[in-house]
């Protein structure tokens, strides 16, 4: 039984208002994207945008069947190595499955959070899924679950996926 492979084309467009220790970063930010423990790609470094960097760079990564999130992390290249600035989790349900047709280009933006959970800017990107395959988690073909619009987290067609704000993100390792 051949497993169908899917990949995503993710274009990291830009980020806004990035800070380290409360102060806007100077330069040399780049973005690392991870879909599985062994699948990571990074953009090149932005040298001119300051704390509003823009990359407009497309990265292609495999998307495993069971993947439910794509991790996106903004890092900064400093003289002493790389420093994590902030990151976000992009739920697969936001760009695949449900009403979204195959190959549809979705434009998304997410709130970035530091390792300790504090807000730190916004990231803008676009994603397109390539290849065929089933989407993980119980996705039905509707735009949103037929229950009334309740404000409980994790609603909206995500099946059993809970989406929330990590309180202690420091426990997770930084994407290398």
């Amino acid at each position, binding site marked *: 039984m051949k497993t169908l492979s899917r990949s995503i084309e993710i274009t990291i467009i830009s980020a806004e208002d990035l800070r380290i220790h409360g102060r806007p970063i100077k330069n040399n930010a780049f973005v690392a994207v991870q879909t599985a423990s062994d699948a990571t790609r990074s953009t090149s470094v932005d040298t001119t945008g300051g704390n509003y960097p823009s990359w407009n760079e497309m990265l292609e990564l495999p998307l495993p069947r069971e993947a439910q999130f794509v991790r996106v992390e903004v890092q900064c290249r400093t003289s002493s190595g790389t420093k994590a600035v902030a990151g976000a989790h992009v739920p697969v349900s936001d760009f695949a499955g449900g*009403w979204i047709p195959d190959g549809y280009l979705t434009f*998304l*933006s997410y*709130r970035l959070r530091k390792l300790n959970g504090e807000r730190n800017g916004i990231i*803008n990107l676009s994603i397109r899924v390539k290849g065929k395959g089933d989407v993980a988690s119980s996705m039905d073909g509707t*735009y949103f679950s037929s229950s009334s619009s309740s*404000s409980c987290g994790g609603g909206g067609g995500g099946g059993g996926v809970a989406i*929330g704000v990590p309180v202690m993100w420091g426990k997770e390792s930084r994407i290398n």
Partner: protein
Amino acid sequence: MGNCCSDVAGGRAAVGGTAASHHDPASGTAANDAVDLFLKYRGYNGLFTQIELSLSASNLRDMDVLSKSDPIAVVYTKGKDGKLEELGRTEVVLNSLNPAWITKLSITYHFEVVQNLVFYVYDVDTQFQSIPVKTLKLEEQQLIGEASCTLSEIVTKPTHSLTLSLMNRKESSKSNRSSHLGDLTIHAEECIGSKILTEVILRCSDLEYKDLFSRSDPFLVISKIVESGNPIPVCKTEVKKNDLNPKWNSIFLSIQQVGSKDNPLLIECFNFNSNGRHDLLGKVQKSLAELEKLQYNKQGECLFLPTVVGNNYQNKVLKSQLFVEKFSESIHRTFLDYIAGGCELNFMVAIDFTASNGNPRLPDSLHYIDPSGRPNAYQRAILEVGEVLQFYDSDKKFPAWGFGARPIDGPVSHCFNLNGSNYQPEVEGIQGIMMAYTSALYNVSLAGPTLFGPVINNAAVIASQAVATSQQKYFVLLIITDGVITDLQETKDALVKASDLPLSILIVGVGGADFKEMEVLDADKGDRLENYAGRVATRDIVQFVPFRDVQSGEISIVQSLLAELPTQFLTYMWTREAHLDS
């Protein structure tokens, strides 16, 4: 609309240009209220295009005995009061019943207004044929027939052509037979200048220090110089912090905005001050053609600063220079191109049926149906928006919902079909909306609270279905409400989810409530919307405006809302195309 003083973040953002967020669709550049109001005050509104009309006719009725008719066509625009104003007339074609007139008539297409046109075709008497067409007295000619239509009807046809049958009102009232007077064909062509978009990247060097302890925060304002001498701002760049050699993001200018490639433009460099009093760092006057030359020659142009010398101003030439890093022209599909290509604008409406409107049977209620036929605020808002949008929808079937009421024998519903059906929400035409509205008024009991979430989600479902089936449709949801919403977070969640869909939401507030809280939904006035899970709205799809009575002659505030629709539509289309190409 709303706050007049621009917030600092909004003041720093780039504004103006055509779809300035072209390459950065999700950055949500906040518009500067002050510049916005300024531009509107000067009459610079929204998207408008120059159109040329060419006329031809066939099978005209023969009016002359010995030879064929010598027809001329005259075009009038009809105002809201019914008054006709001549737009222009063609030349006289001798001896033909199938004339193709060469003279083209220019008209400015305004998306947000219903432009009524009336055409008269006359047969010119032989004795008048040698005199200039302009001086012809039309009442002395023989009228062959007339026809009327709206400009939107012509431009929404895929061929940009519309054929109408000529009629003669005086004759048809006398005889019962309808005599064939001929057909008139009108073809509309967008002027090529509208399609050219110029991308310019500007850079300055050696700007002067203006702030005491830091470098300047420069930004540029580009204005076009008109005959009256006062420059009209066309666009401004974003603010570069702490930079004396700034290079700004791309500016997109269309020929419409600047007049022509040779029109002089005033480029002023200011130092941003949070108190709003920006210092002028220098200025230069160049046309687009001259900027192109600067880029080609890789030269810089020195800025000059008017300084007071005695009683006069003298222009002091500075060391600071302006460079043009990029100058490229591209042809873009315009709004009318998309419409002609089959793209439709689908109108949807949602009406507030909460109890705060008042008992519909009492005259002081916002929902009171006046027996004399005078429309209430809800009806006026529906008419103003619907009358313009209906031409862009091919099947004229509009989903219509109500919210905040209890239909007979049911719990409170926050999204019920106005037509009373359980299965589908559509009604036929604007008349259909009006009828469904009045009948719903007497079949539901007003309740509450005011929730937008369900209505927005329903509209988003329809839009997403169109996307899933690759239909070229763009949806416009009009929500008319009298009060402030109670489900702010849910509405934000619904908006964030819908922000990547081909959907624009116009919210009109009627009645006297204080709508300040609603303005947070309109990203022009604040931050980008964020949902509970951390996703941020891709683009600003909401526009909110309080409904005000207009005095005659003024631009209705709802019209100014509509004027921004083509730009929202184009931004959606162009960003997708740009990413598909790259």
